[in-house]
């Protein structure tokens, strides 16, 4: 069993890379246990209630533009938080959730850095909560780019007849003049017959994050991103794509 340090973890909050401002992360996905014990039951009997998802980051204070003080004091709702706990490689495991930020708690002591405390992120919207998925990309490009084919690693890793999915895009370095059309594609063999299953609205013109969904339908086992440039300036686009599919589907 490979044991991995979290030291290379990538932390993305609403399109901002805050890895070096984050000292700890916690992700929690749980479900209420509803007591359904009746007479004559052999022991207490529970049925699952509604799911609960939340994530927590301990973060450091930085008062410069677009850093933690400015961004995290907004108490944003409707943005996205994505972690790549082992650091990025194509297909690396990810943890992601659309969030509403529930608190902002600056802290300090004479012997420590100024912190912004333990920031709690609660699930936002009618979603699956914390998504455990894979990274399709985390890096920069300057021209039209096609991502590496990433194979589904949930057993069995095969084409699925009906499976819901979602993808989250973080744009962390925006382009000055070029724009990009960024989509997620799937394929059965990882090399041919790629087709688009999700299209992001973000063009790379601004730092942002966005989540797109794929309603339950045939889902092929390989996925990749395709970023098509409009313009010729060759601006740098920094972005990350997280992909999740319903892990309960196996056929």
């Amino acid at each position: 069993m490979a044991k991995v340090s979290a030291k290379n973890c990538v932390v993305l909050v609403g399109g901002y890379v805050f890895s070096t401002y984050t000292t700890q992360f916690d992700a929690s996905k749980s479900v209420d246990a509803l007591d359904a014990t009746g007479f004559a039951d052999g022991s207490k009997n529970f049925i699952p209630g509604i799911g609960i998802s939340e994530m927590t980051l301990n973060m450091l204070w930085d008062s410069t533009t677009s850093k933690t003080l400015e961004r995290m004091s907004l108490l944003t709702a409707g943005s996205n938080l994505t972690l790549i706990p082992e650091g990025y490689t194509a297909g690396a495991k990810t943890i992601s959730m659309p969030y509403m930020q529930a608190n902002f708690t600056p802290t300090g002591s004479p012997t420590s850095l100024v912190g912004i405390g333990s920031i709690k992120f609660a699930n936002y919207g009618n979603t699956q909560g914390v998504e455990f998925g894979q990274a399709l990309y985390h890096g920069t490009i300057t021209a039209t780019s096609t991502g590496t084919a990433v194979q589904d690693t949930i057993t069995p890793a095969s084409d699925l007849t009906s499976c819901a999915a979602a993808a989250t895009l973080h744009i962390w370095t925006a382009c000055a003049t070029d724009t990009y059309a960024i989509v997620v594609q799937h394929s059965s063999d990882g090399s041919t017959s790629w087709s688009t299953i999700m299209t992001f609205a973000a063009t790379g013109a601004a730092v942002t994050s966005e989540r797109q969904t794929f309603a339950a339908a045939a889902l092929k086992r390989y996925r990749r991103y395709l970023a098509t440039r409009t313009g010729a300036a060759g601006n740098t686009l920094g972005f990350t794509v997280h992909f999740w599919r319903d892990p309960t589907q196996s056929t």
Partner: protein
Amino acid sequence: MALATATITAAIAGMTVYKYGSTTTKISIKDINALDPHVEARDCPILFPAPGEWKGGAEGAPDEETTFGTASTRMWTVHQVFKYLFVQAQAGSERDINDYYLPASANADSIWSALLALDISGVDVEGVNMSPVGVVTDPTGTQHIGCFFDVTFRERINA
């Protein structure tokens, strides 16, 4: 991404510490490029990096990383110990210990106070450990009245 050893030693060398009983004459404080292998009577009192053992050993290694990210950009906390030798006067230059002890201890107190007040960007003075004031030996074997200061610094890299 770098440790601030040179900045720290320069800051220590730049401290203003007046001799016992004076408000104008300062204790001589040396930087790392001015190690003093042999202390002359006219140099005293003097504080300088302890030759051969100035930079601490095990404590000099990074012992904690505190944020996530790529290796070159993540934040580290590093603890380092620097050893300084304070010499009040050559042993035998006065009639008895009473002639050394008050000025030596008063000067040591002033050095301690100055060390605690060091204000270096990205660096905290974490602790100061002073050895008993008594007979110390310089690298040439000459005996003096003085003491050692072990100063522990906490440095934040990429903070």
